[in-house]
């Protein structure tokens, strides 16, 4: 009966309860969605760190970490190869030749870590092949001589990327539903080449209205972007005998991950092309990336390899991408801190509502105490009322929050307009929020705790009532 009375009491002043319930609902929805957004971000960063950039583990010659010299190759390579092949906990591994080099074209130059890879093995360790941009070549599929994969950012630095309104660009704009009036205004820059995005954007803003740029700018940028595939990029580096070597590679593909820093540091060529030029044999390499079947075995596998081969250095992705590791470690707590702040703020509203409710029911509470309702029951009734009041809004809020996470988890949330800053730090500009079921369990416990804590003040006020005086009060 206490439960029933408490539930009915919640609806006694429907309007006031609905206001509090709505506040809790909005707060919980916002909390769940924000947590989902952050989790999506973190998970994307972690996936990128492990499955695109680092793998679970990396093996180095300890000297290579201090000095990225060509001669600091991994020792005992054949023994390590055999060990990795026989360890069932290891899903795949890939050796890489890494040479610090200077890349140049006739229009630009940049420093890059040139990585020589075995394409098929690398595909099993890193999913970088999935990040080749549309209309930007392929991941070593064309079979030309000395192919190279560079990033969008590198293409920009080497001036291999440009923005040009070609005849086919206008066709694709028409197909994308851009009004003819907008295309007409752009005819004036047909076949004019813009070497940077900023220059092209500046010209667009001169030709189109602010509203048109805002509405169609992204589509026009996408259609006008061109990469000069098969362009030659000359790389200069020192070979094993300390001689300065130059070699031209042809751009066969352009990739773009969510980590600009990673992108602008790395370029990929075939190990079979790079090793002979650098004077290395097929079994000489600087780095081995390892992907595990079960990421939770990370530390165990790491120590096993390290103990077996004391001459090498084994680093986990947590050491190689400490930002992602730290965020991963603390983020679980952050979600609850966000919810805690929201519920803490809401608690004041809940307490206020319950205090009002107690004040209005002074006479009734006096009567209940007079006829024999003990303090435990009075406290339980008020506590249950508060929990119900909080939980109703929270349950609906969690449902709405979950729905918003599910929907945006499919569509993604595009922060491209401010995305450069995110991507420079390795965080994706398009986020796909996600959330664990366990989070809802935690939030439910927090909501109940908020209800219980919020009920203490009103309940204390009720328990302090003197039945004789309370009954006489005219509500």
């Amino acid at each position, binding site marked *: *009966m206490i439960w*029933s*009375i408490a539930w*009915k*009491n919640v*609806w*006694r002043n429907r309007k006031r309860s609905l206001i509090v319930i709505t506040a809790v609902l909005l707060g919980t929805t916002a909390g769940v969605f924000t947590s989902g957004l952050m989790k999506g971000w973190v998970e994307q960063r972690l996936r990128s760190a492990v499955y695109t950039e680092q793998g679970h583990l990396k093996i180095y010659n300890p000297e290579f970490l201090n000095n990225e010299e060509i001669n600091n190759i991994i020792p005992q390579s054949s023994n390590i190869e055999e060990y990795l092949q026989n360890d069932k906990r290891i899903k795949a591994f890939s050796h890489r030749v890494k040479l610090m080099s200077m890349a140049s074209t006739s229009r630009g130059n940049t420093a890059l870590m040139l990585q020589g890879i075995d394409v098929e093995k690398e595909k099993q360790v890193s999913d970088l092949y999935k990040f080749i941009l549309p209309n930007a070549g392929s991941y070593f599929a064309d079979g030309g001589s000395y192919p190279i994969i560079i990033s969008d950012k590198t293409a920009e630095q080497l001036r291999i990327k440009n923005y040009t309104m070609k005849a086919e660009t206008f066709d694709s704009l028409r197909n994308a539903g851009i009004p003819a009036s907008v295309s007409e205004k752009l005819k004036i820059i047909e076949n004019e080449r813009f070497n940077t995005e900023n220059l092209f954007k500046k010209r667009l803003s001169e030709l189109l209205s602010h509203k048109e740029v805002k509405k169609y700018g992204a589509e026009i940028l996408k259609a006008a972007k061109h990469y000069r595939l098969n362009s030659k990029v000359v790389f200069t580096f020192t070979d094993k005998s300390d001689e300065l070597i130059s070699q031209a590679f042809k751009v066969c593909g352009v990739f773009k991950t969510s980590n600009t820093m990673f992108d602008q540091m790395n370029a990929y060529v075939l190990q079979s092309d790079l090793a002979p030029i650098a004077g290395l044999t097929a079994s000489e390499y600087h780095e081995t990336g390892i992907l595990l079947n079960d990421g939770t075995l990370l530390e165990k596998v790491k120590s096993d390899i390290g103990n077996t081969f004391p001459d090498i250095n084994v680093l986990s992705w947590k050491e190689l991408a400490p930002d992602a590791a730290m965020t991963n470690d603390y983020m679980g707590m952050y979600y609850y801190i966000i919810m805690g702040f929201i519920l803490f703020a809401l608690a004041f509203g809940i307490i206020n509502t319950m205090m009002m409710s107690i004040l209005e029911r002074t*006479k*009734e509470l006096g*009567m*209940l*105490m*007079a*006829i*024999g*309702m*003990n*303090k435990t*029951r009075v406290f339980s009734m008020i506590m249950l009322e508060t929990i119900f009041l909080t939980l109703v809004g929270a349950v609906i809020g969690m449902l709405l929050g979950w729905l918003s996470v599910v929907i945006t988890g499919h569509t993604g949330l595009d922060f491209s307009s401010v995305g450069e800053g995110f991507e420079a730090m390795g965080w994706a500009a398009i986020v796909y929020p996600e959330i664990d079921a366990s989070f809802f369990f935690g939030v439910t416990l927090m909501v109940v705790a908020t209800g219980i804590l919020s009920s203490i003040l009103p309940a204390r006020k009720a328990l302090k009532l003197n*039945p*004789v005086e309370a*009954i006489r009060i005219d509500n």
Partner: protein
Amino acid sequence: MNVIEIKDLVKIYSNNVMEVTAVDNVNLTIEKGEFTAIVGPSGSGKTTLLNMIGGLDQATSGQILVDGVDVSTLNSKQLVDFRLHNIGFVFQSYNLIPVLTASENVSFIMEMQGLDKATIQSRTTEILTEVGLGDRMESRPNQMSGGQQQRVAVARAMASRPKFIIADEPTANLDSKTTEKLLDIMEELNEKENITFLFSTHDQRVVNKARRIIVLEDGKIVKDEKVR
């Protein structure tokens, strides 16, 4: 058999300025099945006396024995339990729980007593039928007249089969016709269930129904007579 025995009961209200003796050396015995009205002008100490008998207020001195138990020796927790199992209350302004139906208002007290569901259900139906509300069991207080609400309050007080019922000005908010009906019902219940009724009132209609009348003035019993 005595249900209530009051010995040398005194209640003094005091503040820094003055002391007021609300109940002054009252000695009283109430037997089982009595239908007694305590009357007197406002401020005569009726309600204070009833509050002390009902365990809602502490005496300054003296003893109140209910079925041999000295109420003044019980702590607040024991008093709550004592009230729940021994005393029924009927208040001037009904004091029903507005979100509960008539039957829920009645059964609620029995649930607090820990009675089983079947007993609660049959007793609720029985007592609400006895007060003439067998057809209004699912009505909420705001769907009933004042008289009907007070009858639910009487049913609630009776439901727990208390040793006695304290009714503080139960008819003060009712019209004549409703008062007559309510008093008839209470009288009938008193006779049928042999439950002791103790009224505080200045309503002559209640006095006319009472079988014993105790008159209080300035906290003292000035008259105590059995009239029927």
